[in-house]
């Protein structure tokens, strides 16, 4: 079974630029999560999708972050414009469904904003 795929693996941008991350979940997984992990901290949920609908985006900074999962499969997370404090690893995870299903994580995208 192929795991969660993410790209790019690394990205360096200057502040005020925009950036996009892509995630391809495990086939058949209805639920997709984006987490932000700042150095020295645990992952923090940014947004959760159930198929192509948003379940929770309470911690997504909506003035600069956006995410979509148009066909209920792949997802894109965008930051525009980026700030220095956005430097982090962005993790995508997927699960069969919401609730008590195991979450499977991708390798993450390491973003550095200079």
């Amino acid at each position, binding site marked *: 079974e192929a795991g969660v795929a993410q790209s790019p693996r690394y990205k360096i941008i200057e502040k005020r630029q925009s950036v996009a991350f892509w995630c391809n979940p495990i086939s058949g997984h209805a639920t997709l999560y984006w987490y932000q992990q700042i150095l020295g901290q645990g992952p923090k949920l940014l947004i959760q999708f159930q198929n192509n609908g948003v379940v*929770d985006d309470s911690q997504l900074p909506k003035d600069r972050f956006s995410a979509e999962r148009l066909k209920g499969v792949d997802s894109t997370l965008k930051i525009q414009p980026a700030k220095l404090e956005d430097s982090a690893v962005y993790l995508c995870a997927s699960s069969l469904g919401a609730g008590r299903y195991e979450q499977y994580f991708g390798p993450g995208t390491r973003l550095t904003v200079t």
Partner: protein
Amino acid sequence: AQRVTQPEKLLSVFKGAPVELKCNYSYSGSPELFWYVQYSRQRLQLLLRHISRESIKGFTADLNKGETSFHLKKPFAQEEDSAMYYCAQNSGNTGKLIFGQGTTLQVKP
């Protein structure tokens, strides 16, 4: 706010010594608790969850509601246990995980 606390950033032990990684949570309902592990150059993966009550790679964790704790234990540490360990809770029906800050376990030969 719901919170998961791992008080130790780094735990260093010798091979064969017992290990206990501490985790405390703040949810007052019936949370579901997990331990996730990230080995060097690998992705974050589930180690164990309290509802399964099983031992994985020799690790066990017991949910103590009175102390709101979910400490991870192993009687004899191995060098291959060296990794970053995260405690997490699922406090609702959505699957949203709240993670602690993580503890680096270093097992010395």
